[in-house]
């Protein structure tokens, strides 16, 4: 009995350590980041377009970075969602089992490739290609979108496949029994039934894209500017932190934490949204 209690306490402690880490990180980021935001004003921090940590007085406006993150993330969704959802539909509805057993591990492997490798491939292959065949300098919103679009595939595919698999067989049978084709059944019955899970997949893919750093730094050029075309270079919120953290001090350093606060809030909102939608889907 005593032993039982002890084991339970140990397990509780282990479980708490994850929550504890989250708590520590949250407090730390907020404590380091919030003061500088309030000192300069929330409005001028979020919507200021100038980022000049070394000017006198220093100017910390992250708007260009917010736009940058939004642009590459949006682009990643435009590329990743159709491809990912298409693959998920193929795997769950049409592929013979033999094909699935080949595809699934391959997609999991894609998730395991370190992001620096994606960035490296992007620099070696994608940037020259864009430069020569499409225009601009190569490093751009477009390049970031393509690389991130590929990187979110495993997330989008895995969660969409789960959502599609969770649709009861009886719906599909009912549709087939009315003479519907496989595609009509998928499009009009299975996909609407899996809607909530698929939206959750898209949102989680979005979270993954916003949070990605290394690969993005390597292919987007990192200039602090509001992009006017997909071929312009941009800097994302994550890149901003990673690029300057090593030499920043004082208020500059605080401003980088403040950038982290913005990211943190965005990602928290996305996760909450994904959970809420998944819950609504279950209730239906």
């Amino acid at each position, binding site marked *: 009995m005593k032993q039982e209690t002890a084991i339970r306490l140990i397990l509780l402690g282990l479980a708490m350590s994850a929550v504890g880490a989250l708590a520590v990180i949250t407090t730390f980021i907020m404590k380091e980041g919030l003061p500088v935001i309030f000192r300069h004003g929330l409005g001028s921090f979020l919507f200021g377009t100038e980022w000049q940590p070394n000017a006198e007085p220093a100017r910390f406006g992250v708007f260009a970075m917010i736009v940058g993150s939004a642009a590459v993330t949006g682009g990643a969704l435009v590329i990743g969602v159709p491809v990912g959802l298409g693959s998920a539909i193929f795997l769950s509805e049409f592929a013979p089992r033999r094909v699935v057993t080949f595809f699934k591990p391959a997609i999991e492997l894609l998730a395991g490739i370190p992001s620096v490798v994606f960035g490296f491939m992007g620099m070696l292959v994608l940037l020259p290609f864009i430069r020569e065949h499409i225009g601009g300098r190569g490093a751009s919103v477009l390049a970031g979108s393509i690389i991130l679009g590929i990187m979110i595939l495993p997330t989008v595919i895995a969660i969409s496949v789960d959502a599609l698999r969770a649709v009861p067989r*009886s719906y599909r*049978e009912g*549709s*087939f029994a*009315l*003479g519907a084709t496989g595609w009509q059944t998928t499009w*009009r019955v299975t996909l609407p*039934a899996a809607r909530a899970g698929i939206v959750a997949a898209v949102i989680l893919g979005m979270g993954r894209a916003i949070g990605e750093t290394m690969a993005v730094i390597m292919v987007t050029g990192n200039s602090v500017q509001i992009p006017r075309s997909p071929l312009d270079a941009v800097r994302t919120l994550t890149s901003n932190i990673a690029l300057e953290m090593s030499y920043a001090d004082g208020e500059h350093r605080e401003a980088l934490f403040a950038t982290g606060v913005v990211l943190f809030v965005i990602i928290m909102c996305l996760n909450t949204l994904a959970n809420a939608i998944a819950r609504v889907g279950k209730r*239906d």
Partner: protein
Amino acid sequence: MLEARNVRLWYGDFNALKGVSMKIQPRSITAIIGPSGCGKSTMLRCFNRMNDLVEGCRVEGEVLFEGRNIYDHYDLTELRKRVGMVFQRPNPFPLSVQENVGYGPRIHGLASGDGLRAAVKKALQATQLWNDVGDRLTAPALSLSAEQQQRLCISRLLAVAPDILLMDEPCSALDPMATQNIEELMLELKRDYTIVIVTHNMQQAARVSDFTGFMLLGELVEFGETQTIFTAPTDKRTEEYITGRYG
């Protein structure tokens, strides 16, 4: 109009039907009875080739529909449009009442706009569901009662104007009152449709059907007019089963 000739079926290595032949008469109700696992559902699903969806399923023999073998280069869409199926558990799509009933006409391009609305109404009236749900066509189908859901599934079929209705234990998920209502509906539908029903419930078979087939271990033991089967079966096993002495 529908005839199975020496149908044999395998799920992988398992021989589920061992040469079944039966002739379904138009504008009648044919019941298939037999103990659990004897192949009733499997036989029923041969009539609209739903077994094609099962991986590793193999069928030999012939099923003639209007004289043509449906297993020989027959358009599946056309077949299932004309030979519809109602399942054991009501399985409306998680869509509105209207979208459920309109599903068939829409995918087959039979009607749209006003024509579709009229078709939906007619199909709901045919199952006497119109009075209950006519004023809430946009309500989710899953919010209806079990009996209403089963009626909805039947309406959904009728909307594509089939000739034959296959029903696999359509009342087993319903209470006695709802069962009686659905049985009355079947008798009503018999005037316009040919019905084949699988049932565990021998009273039900006796009450509604004109012909009855008794199956055992993948074989059709006896087939004939319901009255004969229930009062003077020729096979000893049939007699044992209907008098409740079987297994």
